[in-house]
Each structure stands twice: as C-alpha cells, then as structure tokens.
C-alpha cells in the first residue's frame, strides 16, 4: 500500500500510508481541500497529533502515581494531602498544564473515534458523527475550564 488510492473503506493506517506515499517532493506542499474545510481538517489533525503526544508522554506517569502508587502506599506522607495538592492546582501554570493534559487527548480521541465509527463500525452519518465526536471534546474542554477556574 505504498502507492495509489487507499482501499474502500480505508483504515486509518491506509490513509496514513497513502498520504505518506503522496508526500514525495521536498519543498512542495501536499494538496489538501481548499478553503475553510481544509484549514479545519488540518486543525483537527494538529489537535489529534498534540493529543496523541500528551496521552503517550504525560498520562502514564499520572495514572501510575494517582492510580497505583498512591493506593499502594509508596508515596511519602502528606504528598497527596488536600492542602498541598490544592495549593499546587491553584498555580496558574499548573492550571494551564492540566487544561492541556485533560483536553488535548479528548481531541485525539474525537478525531480517531470519528474514523473508527466510519471505517470500523461502518456508520456514515458524517455530519452527525463529526458533531458528536468534536462536540464531546468541546464539552469536556468546557467542563475542564470550569473546574480549573472554580478550584
């Protein structure tokens, strides 16, 4: 699958291979849909990529600390005390960090799950699926901002 069009329906892997095979000329932009749709598509892929890196690099250590180490009693006394964590979470830099940590993987999920619905589940209600996926991510971002501003 290095050349030519992806199979129908294509898997995400096919799409990536296909776009990889088309991106051959150095210094030349890869063609994409013109106008606002193309920009939105590129923006969705950018969020997908950013969310993928956040989920891969940052989330495992957080789950390991909060989900495993805390329950196992491996953490020093008072490390997870309310006052300490509250003080840490109220720092503006921590709030920005938490916003990225929580919301970016939602857009990664939204973009990936949208294609999963189309290609793995065979449902093709494009507009409804897109609104449902990105809408869920937007709601999650809104809830995150609300919680971060009120803690």
């Amino acid at each position, binding site marked *: 699958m290095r050349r030519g069009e992806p199979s129908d329906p294509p898997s995400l892997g096919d799409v990536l291979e296909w776009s*990889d095979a088309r991106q051959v000329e150095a210094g030349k932009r890869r063609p994409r849909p013109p106008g606002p749709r193309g920009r939105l598509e590129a923006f969705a892929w950018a969020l997908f990529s950013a969310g993928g890196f956040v989920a891969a*690099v940052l989330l495992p250590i957080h789950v390991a600390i909060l989900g495993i180490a805390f329950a196992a009693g491996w953490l020093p006394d008072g490390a997870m005390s309310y006052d300490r964590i509250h003080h840490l979470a109220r720092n503006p830099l921590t709030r920005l960090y938490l916003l990225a940590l929580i919301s970016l993987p939602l857009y990664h999920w939204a973009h990936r799950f949208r294609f999963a619905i189309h290609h793995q589940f065979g449902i093709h209600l494009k507009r409804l699926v897109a609104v449902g996926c990105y809408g869920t991510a937007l709601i999650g971002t809104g809830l995150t901002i609300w919680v971060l501003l009120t803690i």
Partner: protein
Amino acid sequence: MLDTPGMVALSALILAALLYHTATWFRLSTYIIVVRLGRRTVPRGVLLAGLVGAWLAVSAAVAYFHIWF
C-alpha cells in the same frame, strides 16, 4: 476512593492501555518525523531512543512536581 481494589484494578487497566498507546504512538512517530542533520536523516532507531529518553525525562519531572515539589 482511589485506594479501593476496584479503582486500582481500573487504573492498572488504564495504565496498560496507555503504555500500549505510548509504544504504538512512538513507533508511528518514527515514520512521520524526519530529522535532518546536514544531508543525513536521523535513523528510525535513534529517533525512537530519543523519544523514549524524552518520555522518561518528562515522566521524572512530572513525578517530581507531583510528589516532592
């Protein structure tokens, strides 16, 4: 609430899924990211080692701020 057996089991499941994502995402990234040094491109193996190294360093920094800072 986080120290109940059910939550620990759920966390272990989530952690396993996350580590699988980390492995597949880094592997995928070595195909997409192209780092050029002069006329040479950095081999995929070196790129993967760099990603794993960065991941360990970032995880250590997060653990430091989360637990000891």
